């Protein structure tokens, strides 16, 4: 009899209720704290030990990103950054004091999530062909894209290297899973067990994506000097393309 009542309240609590309670109590906060501290430390270490890659920016230039892909990239980039920031606000709402500030953060999270989903669809389509994995991606993985040495050796990569491809697939496919689970959490309908499962998926995927997001930020801002400019002007210096995207054909 009591089991029947229990199922009528919120479903079988032992299935995901207990799992969610344990994860939220002891894992999610720590996981995000670890990601937000350890990864910047590792990247800082990389910057100090190996340092940024510098390429001559006054030489010939290669047209790399057309205007449409740049616009789409920046819409996705800005909305994604907002989502990471506001998502972290929810995770660390206790030190931030909670209340109206975090409520506002959640609204921004919802709005930018919607915009991101809209921008991610064309982004997925225009870059899909260049993002398909190819044989030399494995070679790239073995030498870690040449980022562990100071030498300028041509690394095997087409328009996008294996690292960018991982980021792309995680951000688009993972992004759609995040968008869907986020939609379910926003609508707050359906069996409670579904909500519990969705919040677990949302948290784990968000953790993986924020880690990749930090690495992507580091690569574009610091690891390759001046590479941010290529996403603004669309041009990359020929030397950089010859080394980092040696298989690229325009």
């Amino acid at each position, binding site marked *: 009899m009591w089991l029947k009542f229990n199922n009528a*309240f*919120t479903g079988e609590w*032992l299935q995901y209720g207990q799992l*969610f309670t344990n994860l939220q109590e002891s894992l999610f906060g720590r996981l995000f704290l670890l990601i937000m501290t350890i990864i910047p430390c590792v990247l800082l270490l990389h910057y100090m030990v190996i340092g940024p890659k510098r390429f001559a920016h006054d030489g010939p230039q290669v047209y790399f990103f057309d205007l449409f892909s740049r616009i789409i990239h920046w819409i996705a980039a800005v909305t994604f950054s907002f989502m990471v920031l506001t998502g972290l606000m929810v995770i660390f709402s206790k030190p931030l004091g*909670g209340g109206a500030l975090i*409520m506002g953060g*959640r609204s921004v999270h919802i709005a930018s999530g919607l915009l991101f989903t809209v921008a991610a669809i064309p982004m997925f389509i225009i870059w899909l062909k260049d993002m398909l994995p190819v044989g030399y991606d494995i070679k790239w993985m073995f030498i870690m894209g040449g980022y562990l040495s100071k030498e300028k050796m041509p690394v095997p990569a087409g328009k996008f290297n294996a690292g960018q491809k991982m980021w792309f697939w995680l951000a688009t496919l993972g992004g759609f899973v995040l968008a869907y689970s986020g939609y379910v959490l926003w609508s707050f309908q359906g069996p409670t067990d579904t909500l519990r499962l969705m919040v677990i998926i949302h948290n784990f995927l968000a953790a993986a994506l924020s880690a990749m997001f930090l690495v992507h930020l580091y690569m574009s801002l610091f690891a390759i000097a001046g590479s941010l400019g290529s996403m603004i002007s669309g041009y990359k210096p020929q030397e950089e393309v010859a080394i980092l995207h040696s298989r690229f054909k325009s």
Partner: protein
Amino acid sequence: MGRMKFLCDVERCIDCKGCVVACKEGNHIPVGINRRRVITIGQGKPGEKSLSISCMHCSDAPCIAVCPVDCIYQREDGIVLHDKEACIGCGYCFMACPFGAPQFPSGQVFGARGAMDKCTFCAGGPEENFSAKEIKLYGQNRIAEGKVPLCAGMCATKALLAGDASEVSDVYRERVFKRGSGASAWGQDKKAYKD
């Protein structure tokens, strides 16, 4: 100090939903939010049973464990209360709760959830007792007035008992003794949870 408890006697509950109405009216709960619900199983069949359910003010409450703002807290007498001004409406407490007690008003910006609302055992909130703010945010504070919660006070069949745990169990034990329901009255013939 005692330990406050609800107990709903399923042999007495007649699914009149008087507790739900009393709670909603007395505490001015908006439409769409139910601090208390009545659940009926096996409706229309022999052995139909009804149970009035709200926040059970658990010891080691899972909502307190998952709240990212730590705005839910437990008083010394066991009543679980929360600070609506710190609540961010994330909904985690609802997902952790085995009873579906936390409720959320909708209609904020982008249709997002507002601050959580749940049964306060008619003990108000963290604000000053009987202040206008407490009444507006949390409803009546009948505990501070020395009364039982509205739902239990209202219950026509006295199925819903509320108060100090030892008193409540004394009343129930006496009933069970008179009824002679055997061991199953406490639900001990079957396990509610897996081992």
